Every structure is written in structure tokens, then in C-alpha cells.
């Protein structure tokens, strides 16, 4: 009888302890990733960089830059992706290869993101790795604030 009572008490305590275990251990990221890759040759001419927006790939957004791209071009590419995300969503609904260009042919001085030099340096030193749909390339992943979430608030 005592053993049964102790067993039941143990079951009560054990059940309560188990219910206190967390369902998840970490918070989901609040930013949206983008892979930046340096390639020997861009897939399509007519743009200093190309943005791949994919749906069925783990790396949804990929910025392709030529191997000799500088930090300024990288900054412009990131800015272009932010623009695309603000218009079409942080995740693309359909795959597309896009570029963003000023309507006017007149160039405008853009201030580089202060942190872009760091990313550019890391990109230059990154090891080659396979990227689906692209091939082997030096690549890094950075995280950008969501764009459409702000617009919808």
C-alpha cells in the first residue's frame, strides 16, 4: 500500500516536472537571411549584380556579384534586395532573377552601409561552397530587417 502511494506520488511529481519542460528552446530569428556570392561571371549581362529569388531552395535570396566587385557595389546590391523585398515581400512567392536600376540614367551618390566593408572583406576571404543553382562560390550569409512586416504594421 505504501509502495503504491509512493509510486503514485512519484507519478504526480514526475508528470508535473515533465509539463514544465519547454516546447522550444530558442526564439526564431527576427531578420531575413540573404546569401551573397561571388561568381566568375554573372548569369546575365546588363547589370553589375543579379538577385536570385527562389522559392524551393533553402537559400531563398541570393545576391550574385562578380568576383571583382567592390564594397560599394555590394552595398548597392543589398539596397536593391531591400527594395525588392519591400515591394514583393521578404520571401518571394514565385522564383525570379531580378535587377534593380534607377529609372533615371543619372547616377546618384549612395552612402554605403557602414558595415558593408566588413561583409565585403569576409566575402573575399570566404571559402568556396556549393550553392544550389549557382555552383561553387565564395559566399556569406547576412541577415536583414524584414521589409514587408513594417509596411503591413
Amino acid at each position: 500500500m505504501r509502495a503504491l502511494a509512493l509510486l503514485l506520488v512519484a507519478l504526480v511529481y514526475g508528470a508535473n516536472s515533465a509539463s514544465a519542460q519547454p516546447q522550444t528552446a530558442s526564439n526564431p530569428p527576427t531578420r531575413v537571411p540573404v546569401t551573397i556570392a561571388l561568381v566568375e561571371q554573372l548569369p546575365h549581362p546588363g547589370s553589375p549584380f543579379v538577385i536570385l529569388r527562389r522559392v524551393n531552395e533553402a537559400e531563398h535570396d541570393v545576391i550574385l556579384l562578380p568576383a571583382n566587385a567592390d564594397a560599394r557595389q555590394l552595398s548597392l546590391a543589398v539596397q536593391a534586395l531591400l527594395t525588392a523585398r519591400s515591394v514583393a515581400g521578404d520571401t518571394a512567392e514565385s522564383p525570379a532573377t531580378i535587377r534593380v536600376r534607377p529609372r533615371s540614367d543619372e547616377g546618384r551618390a549612395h552612402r554605403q552601409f557602414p558595415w558593408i566593408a566588413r561583409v565585403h572583406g569576409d566575402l573575399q576571404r570566404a571559402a568556396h561552397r556549393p550553392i544550389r543553382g549557382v555552383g561553387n562560390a565564395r559566399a556569406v550569409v547576412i541577415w536583414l530587417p524584414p521589409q514587408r512586416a513594417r509596411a503591413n504594421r
Partner: protein
Amino acid sequence: MLRRTLLALLLVLAVLPRSSCAQSTYETSVAGSGYEDMVVGEARDVPCEYGYSGRFQQYYGVEFEDYMFLTDWISKRSDFPLPSWNWYYAYPMRNVVSNDGRARWDNAEIQVHCWIYRAMYMIQHHRDIVAAAGQLVELCEDDWRIDVRREDGDDESDGSRLGSSRYNPYARSSWGATEFCEEDNDGGGGGAGGTQYYPGDHTGGETVTWEGGVGTGEYSACGQDAKVEYVCIDVWVEGVGWTEWSCGYTTTC
């Protein structure tokens, strides 16, 4: 009959859900507890402990104003034995950032009621949080400089805007729930919306509508550097080439 009653009681206790709100209970045997004089069913206040670990209430910590905070607690009093109703302050940091990074509990304090209950074969030790004090601060992205530690160091971030040198592009999250404060700490901000902007205009931190270049009242990722530009997005069409998809206004840095 008595055995059946006891068995039924124990079975009922086994299925009763334990409240997870501000209560902590653990059990010890009666023998050697120092409370052998207690009768079954008796409740008694006991001195509180000097400190508690962050998970003494729940695995995620202590709840304060709908946020969860994981921190250790130290008694505000150091004269022993401590009272049964005792106040504690957060330790080691008095200001604690919530588990999700969205809020900060300044001067975090809790009051704990310590008591025991003589059950049939065990002593139940209760540590109930009965009050809390402090101020809740909703965090914005620029609050990165608060010296707090998160259990999940993977999400450590400088939490700044894109146009700031403090922005960490490798961080998956920022400190705050929203990437941008409703009120711009740099003096600019979303604004009321409705202003018509043209390419080259500074918006003071406001985004513009894609179609018309009208201020949205939303906060731009570029902060005070936000400047209106008219751009086009082209898509590559196989066999055709670059095809204009849409043109509109945007803010760039």
C-alpha cells in the same frame, strides 16, 4: 474502505494539473525534515532561502507584465532567519532583459511567500511569488548598449539600424521585437504619413509608397539617411532578356 478512499485521493492528485503560475513546490520526506511535529493537513510559514535560481518557478523564469525573465534572485535582507514573506532583487543584473529580448524589467524585484504543507507522507515546500516590483520598458533596436546577457548567446546583436555602424549583419535577430522604434531615438522617425516626396528628397526616416512616393508613416531601414529614389525592378525572361516588372518610389540610404 479507508484504503479505497486513499487510493482514490491519490489518483485524483495524480491527474490534477499543477498550476504553473507563480508557484514552486518541491517535496521532501517527513523524517529528518525538522517538521515531524506537523500534523497532516497543517500549513506553516517557514523562513525563505537567501537566493533562488532563475528556474525556481518555471523553466522559462518569472513572468512580469506578460514577459518572461530568466534571472537569479538574491534576498534584499541579510538578517537570518529570513522572513516567510521576503523580497528579492534580480541578480547579477538588477535590470533584466526578457527572454524574447522585447522588454527590460528595471529594478526587478519579487516577493516570495515561503510555506510548507504536511501531506500524508511528504512535506510540500511552497515558494510562491506573491508580488513583483520594478518598471517594464519596451525595448527598441537602439537599446543594444544595455549590459545584459541572454541565455541564448547566438542571438547577441548590436541591434542598430541598417545605416548605423552598430548594425551587426550576421545577427539573426535584434534585441527588440520590432526592428525599428515607433519613436526614432535619433530625432527622426516615421512621421504622420501623407507627405508627397520626390526623388532626391530626404524623408526624415519615413518610407514612401511604391506607387506614389507618399510618406507612409512607417520607419525606414535607413533612418535619417532615408532618401527617395525612383527605381525599376526588372526580371530576366529567358529568350527575351531583362523585362521591366515594376517601377516606383523607394527610400535608399
